[in-house]
Structure formats: C-alpha cells, structure tokens
C-alpha cells in the first residue's frame, strides 16, 4: 500500500516537473553567458515549472471516485494537490521578478518595462497571477481561517487561472522549441481542463446519486444518523469510506444544495446508506433538522481508511475521537453482518460519559468479538491522550496496526505517542477532519 502511495506521488511529481526538465535540455551556452542571461533562463524555467505544476495540481482535483485510492485516500490526494499548488505559487511569484532582475542588467527602465509591458502576453500573465493570488490567499490562510463555502467558491477561480496562464504561455510560444511546445502544453492542459470539466460539469449532473431520507436517529443531542434509501443507482462502498452529501430539503435554514463530506456509518451490504453527522458547522448544524422524505444527493465513495477490510483478522488498534467513531462503526457493522472475526482494541476518546456515541450498539457489536475490547478515554478525567494510557489499555500496541480517526490534534497526539511506543509510521493509518 505504502509502495503504491509513494509511486503514485512520484509519478505525479515527474509529470509536473517534465516540461521544465525538457526545457532545461534545450538550453545552450548563451543562456548561461552572464548573470543577466542566467537570471533570464531561471525566470523562464520557473515560469515553465510553475505552469506545469499548476496544471497537474488542477488535474488532481477531478475527484473521480476510486482515483484517490492509489494515493492513500482523498485527504492524502488533497495534501499532494495542496503541496503542488504551493510550490507552483512560489515558482510563479519568482518568474516575473527573475525576468525583471535579468533586464535590470541593461537598465532600471528595462526592468520595469519587463514587468509592466503593454504586450498582450504580459497583460495575460499579470491577470493570471493576480487571480492566482486571490484564490490562493484563503487556501494558505493569508487573512485568517476562511469560511468553508467562501473558500470553496474562491477556489473555483483556480480553474480560470489555469486557462489565463495557458493563454500567457501560448502567446509567448517560447517555452519549448518546435512542436514540443504545443504537444506538451496541449497534453498537460487537456489533463487539467478535463479534470476541471469533470468536476464542474459531469460530476455535478451525473456523478451525484439521488437518495431519500427514510429515517432519522439521534444518538446524541448534537448528532443525527440519517438512513437514506437509493432512488436510482445504489452506491457501492467499503467500510471506512466517506461521501459528499448534498441536501435539497427546502426548509433547511442554510446549506441547501451545498455538498459536504461525511463518513458512511452503515455496512456496505445494507440496502440503504447510513450517515452520522455531528453538529460541527453551519451546514452540519442545519442538517440536524433535515426532514424525513427529503431528497439528498450522494457523490463518492472516497478514501481507503481500511486498505483491505475483508482480509484475515490481524491485531489492530483503533483510536477514535468523538464522531470519528463512524468508520469503525461501519466496519463493526459490516463484520457483524458477515460473521467475520476481528481482533481489535478500540480506544474511544470523548469529553465525558454523555458524549459516547452509539454506546449500546458498540457494546453489542464488541460482545460478538471475544478477542476484542473497548477502552473509553474521557478528556475531563484523563486529559489529552498519552502514550502511557495507550500502553496501559493495550500492552501489545507496538505489534498492532493502528487506525486513527478524529479531530486533528487527537490524531497528531496519538500518532506521536504510538511512534514513541514503537509502532512504525507505515503501520499508522489516519483519517483527519480537515477542509476538503
């Protein structure tokens, strides 16, 4: 699994770096003749690499179900997309500056003339760069934590930036010689524009499956579990995967028609779909009041929290925080329905006794698994999760594979503690609740 993740990431970086490496191969001695020429060469190369990285980052945003698996799940794929975007941004910021500094070897007015020329290529370049800054600002928290929907709308500017950047590149037609320019940029642009087209067009109209809310359970005051019934095609998924849910209940105060990611809590062979949602933001708060019989649309599934959920039982350590119990619940329900054996130790971290979700069902499911047990961790009593607690609850933790799901601080703490106990990082699988 880890090998697949590493090689998938390597392929993406190779694709992103290829046009720049190719351009490097076409350079000749005069390109390094003097400091001014070197700066000019670097300016051109940073432009090529920045554009290529931006195109590949755009291609990764397609969110085709299953495409995220070789990358270790959608969250990991988004992280790669984020890293590519960040490096592209740094390169594209240095691109015009290096060209201007190169011209400064001639004169100051030539440097300013390089930056602010009336040539169409330069104007399109500036428009692309400014659009890039506007959509990158919330992604990198330039002005504080962004509101999820506003960030999502702004991030769509990224698609326009890619097109503007391509116009700038094609007007210059100087990046790669001969047919290589149109061939390489054409192919890379097709990948990016195809992915954006899929996201904005196809997935919106054909990728979302219609479901209806047929039951609403309330395992806690601020949590609902919606039972959904398919209206057409049935979603196929594995335990631990998540979906994007879009509600269409006309009486929802906010969030109608907005998609948000939620983990599926049901077993894959149930007729319907169950999704447990905690009141964590405006949209999930509104969903606590969603009405029976209203329509929702489901897109997915994504993620691969349990790489092989039906494999022979190996000793596993599960650490869940709050609503992070949902992927584990899905797997427990799945195994119970199939009569499969699990050898797990679940450490369930919550604030206090009243916050334990699905307590009765968890007890029933675990009672069917003689080699498994649950330990509850109460924050008010124990404080943050510590290595000593894990070791005391599960003395053979170091020999187990660990699966962590919950808020980011818990995952980071648990991951550090497990590594200190001797669990190698490659045996720690995590699923964070982050901006997706």
């Amino acid at each position, binding site marked *: 699994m880890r090998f697949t993740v590493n090689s998938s990431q390597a392929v993406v970086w190779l694709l992103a770096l290829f046009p720049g490496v190719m351009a490097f191969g076409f350079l000749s001695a005069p390109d390094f003749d003097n400091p001014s020429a070197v700066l000019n060469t670097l300016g051109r190369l940073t432009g090529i690499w920045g554009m290529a990285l931006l195109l590949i980052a755009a291609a990764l945003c397609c969110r085709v179900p299953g495409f995220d698996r070789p990358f270790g799940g959608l969250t990991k794929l988004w992280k790669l997309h984020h890293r590519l975007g960040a490096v592209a941004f740094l390169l594209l910021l*240095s691109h015009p500056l290096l060209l201007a500094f190169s011209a400064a070897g001639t*004169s100051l007015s030539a440097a300013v003339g390089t930056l602010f020329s009336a040539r169409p290529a330069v104007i399109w370049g500036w428009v692309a760069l400014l659009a890039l800054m506007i959509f990158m600002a919330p992604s*990198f*928290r330039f002005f504080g934590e962004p509101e999820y929907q506003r960030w999502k709308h702004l991030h769509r500017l990224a698609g326009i930036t890619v097109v503007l950047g391509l116009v700038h590149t094609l007007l210059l037609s100087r990046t790669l010689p001969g047919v290589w320019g149109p061939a390489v940029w054409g192919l890379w642009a097709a990948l990016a524009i195809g992915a954006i087209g899929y996201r904005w067009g196809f997935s919106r109209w054909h990728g979302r499956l219609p479901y209806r809310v047929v039951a609403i359970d309330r395992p806690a005051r601020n949590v609902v579990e919606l039972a959904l019934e398919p209206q057409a095609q049935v979603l196929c998924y594995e335990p631990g995967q998540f979906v994007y849910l879009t509600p269409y209940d006309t009486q929802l105060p906010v969030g109608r028609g907005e998609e948000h990611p939620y983990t599926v809590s049901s077993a894959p062979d149930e007729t319907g779909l169950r999704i447990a949602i905690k009141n964590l933001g405006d949209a999930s708060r509104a969903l606590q009041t969603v009405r029976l019989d209203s329509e929702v649309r489901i897109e997915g599934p994504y993620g691969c929290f349990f790489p092989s959920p039906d494999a022979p039982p190996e000793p596993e350590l599960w650490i869940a925080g709050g609503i992070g119990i949902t992927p584990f619940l899905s797997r427990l329900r799945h195994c119970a329905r199939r009569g499969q054996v699990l050898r797990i130790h679940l450490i369930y971290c919550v604030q206090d006794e009243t916050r334990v979700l699905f307590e009765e069902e968890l007890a029933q499911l675990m009672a069917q698994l003689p080699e498994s047990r649950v330990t509850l961790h109460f924050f008010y009593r124990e404080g943050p999760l510590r290595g000593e607690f894990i070791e005391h609850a599960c003395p053979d933790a170091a020999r187990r594979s660990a699966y962590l799901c919950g808020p980011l601080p818990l995952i980071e703490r648990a991951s550090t503690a497990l590594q200190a106990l001797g669990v190698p990082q490659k045996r720690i699988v995590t699923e964070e609740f982050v901006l997706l």
Partner: protein
Amino acid sequence: MKKTVFAAFIAFWSSVGTLLALFALTPTVTLAEGETEYSLEDVAGHDSLEDCWMAIRGKVYNFTDYIPKHPAPPMVIEPWCGREATEGMTTKGYGRDHSPAAWESMGAYQVGILSSKP
C-alpha cells in the same frame, strides 16, 4: 508551508514596489543634442555581417560588434543589415516583438539618427 507561501507573497510585492520606487526616483537621462544624421543611402553602405548598420524607428545603429552576442544565429540578422529594420525588431520568431530589455540594450549601439531627407 503556509508561512513560507505568505512570506513569498510579501517578498514579491516588496520587490515589485522597490523596483517601481527606484524607477520613479531615478532622474531620466536626456539624450545629447546634435546627433549625426544618416540617410538610408548611408545605412545601405553597411550591409554585411562584418559591417552591419540598421535604421530602427528613426535611429541608426551599428550592430557589427553585437552580432556574435545575439541569441539567434547571424544568418537571421544578415538580411536586415543596411536597411530600415524596425519590422525585423517587431517580428522575431512567430511575429513577436523583441523584449523591452532588447529594445533598451540597443541604445549602446546607436551611432546617430535617420535623416528626414530622402
């Protein structure tokens, strides 16, 4: 990563601002009066790579010493020696203009201005 990107963002605008400020504060150099006038006929007498003059936008240049430094091979420049070559400057490659830096660097090779007389 967030801090690095934000630092780069600030550094970018600082650099652009510095360049603009320096440009605004630097006094403009006035060209010397009484430049030598050359006719197109004079220019036509220097039409080889060994002695290459060109008239571009009303000014006359001697590019003989520059030809070895030009990125494109000399054969690309040769047809423009001894002629009015503004078109050559604005249509390199696929009909694109030379860069502002290229225009700027020509000043060093100017020998005079083009006579308005035929």
